[in-house]
């Protein structure tokens, strides 16, 4: 694929991601359901990885993780950088070998990303808080999951518009 198409594709992906993060900042941050606020970031990593495969997906997750670590309150230094990259690798691996790209694939990838993110968070908590942490992670996942109906079409559109078969 020519270099300019690659650049164009990732500029559009970045714009779509920025747009979805605005939804988080302007709307979701003020919503509380079942005691939790929806948290989109792992879903964005999961859906992009399901479309972009085992190299581009994790590289997107790496850059996205660095920005999350620098721009938000991270539970540990470089937490999102490492967790999102690992989650994207696992999601892309599953997407490449078990599913063909589509909603089901994105759903499975998203689930994997939330599980790995939750495991990372639980590892940082003391063992006394694992039960509460696991319950919180489950609620966070379930409350955010319906938003896949918004995130998935956005990235599918970007993927379809920017992918040229050679």
């Amino acid at each position, binding site marked *: 694929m020519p270099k300019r198409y690659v650049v164009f594709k990732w500029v559009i992906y970045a714009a779509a991601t920025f747009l979805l993060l605005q939804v*988080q900042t302007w709307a979701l941050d003020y919503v509380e359901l079942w005691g*939790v606020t929806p948290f989109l970031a792992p879903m964005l990593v999961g859906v992009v990885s399901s479309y972009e495969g085992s*190299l581009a997906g994790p590289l997107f997750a*790496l850059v996205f993780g660095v*920005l999350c670590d620098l721009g938000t309150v991270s539970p540990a*230094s470089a937490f999102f*950088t490492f967790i999102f990259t690992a989650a994207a690798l696992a999601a892309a691996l599953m997407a490449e070998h078990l599913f063909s790209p589509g909603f089901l694939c994105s759903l499975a990838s998203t689930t994997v990303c939330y599980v790995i993110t939750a495991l990372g968070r639980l590892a940082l908590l*003391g063992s006394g808080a694992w039960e*509460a942490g696991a319950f919180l992670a489950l609620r966070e996942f379930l409350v955010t999951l319906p938003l896949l109906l918004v995130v998935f079409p956005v990235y599918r559109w970007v993927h379809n518009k920017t992918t040229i078969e050679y």
Partner: protein
Amino acid sequence: MKRFLTKHGILVLSAATAVAVVLSLVSFFSSNTDLLTNIVHTISAPFRSASAAVSEWVGDNMRFAEEFDALKEENEALKLEIAKMEEQLRQAEADSDENQRLRKLLDLREQQRDLKMESARIIQRDASNWASTLTLSAGTDFGVEIGDCVITESGYLVGIITEAGSNWSTCNTVIDTDFSMGAMIFRTGDVGVAAGDFNLMQEGRLQLNYLDADAAPQVGDLVVTSGLGGYYPSQLVIGYIREVMTDDDGLAQYAVLRPAVEIDGLQQVFVVKDFTVVE
């Protein structure tokens, strides 16, 4: 699987590890907030301010209609409360005069309480569900430093500054798991450590730990900062005791506190940049 890992996995994970190490080193060797974090936050601060302003405006307008009747009732109740407090104030003024006279008689230093503050707006709340932090609109340009206390206009403790950039700062609230501060039960003078706890954070509560076994905390007791060590000002209101418990070993007690401040409703706070307290 093996081909996948050797083809891309190891490469990408190595890149992630390298980036993580660089970020950790930059963070470790920065005495204040590191340069990269400062740049990202400084660029995004105006957007966060705009978002907070719009959300506040929308929220205020939505609440206005539904809260009008409640506000009328609250207004009546507050009028009664003001009348009671005016009476208490008159008594307090008389007590204060007496206190000054007695201090002079005993040749004690005059009580002094001088807090140098900086006003700040809340421009973002942490939305990760795993921490309780606020991003404030004031930073090092205004003299805000890591470790400064953040309070409300009523002197209720909101939290502590944990990161500070040029035009922004991050405050860990009193219920955050990283929060810890010397505290005192106002009625009895018993001291302990007020600290956030992950299980209690979900309920908007915190703990008062390391109380002596012979301490006598009661439900409803006011808990304030102890100011021991002089690192933080004393007498800032942390919260009220909701439950008193005994440790598993039975040697020490701890209490569950309800913070005095309503973190969700906060819009403006004050950062204590410097203080002089003479008890």
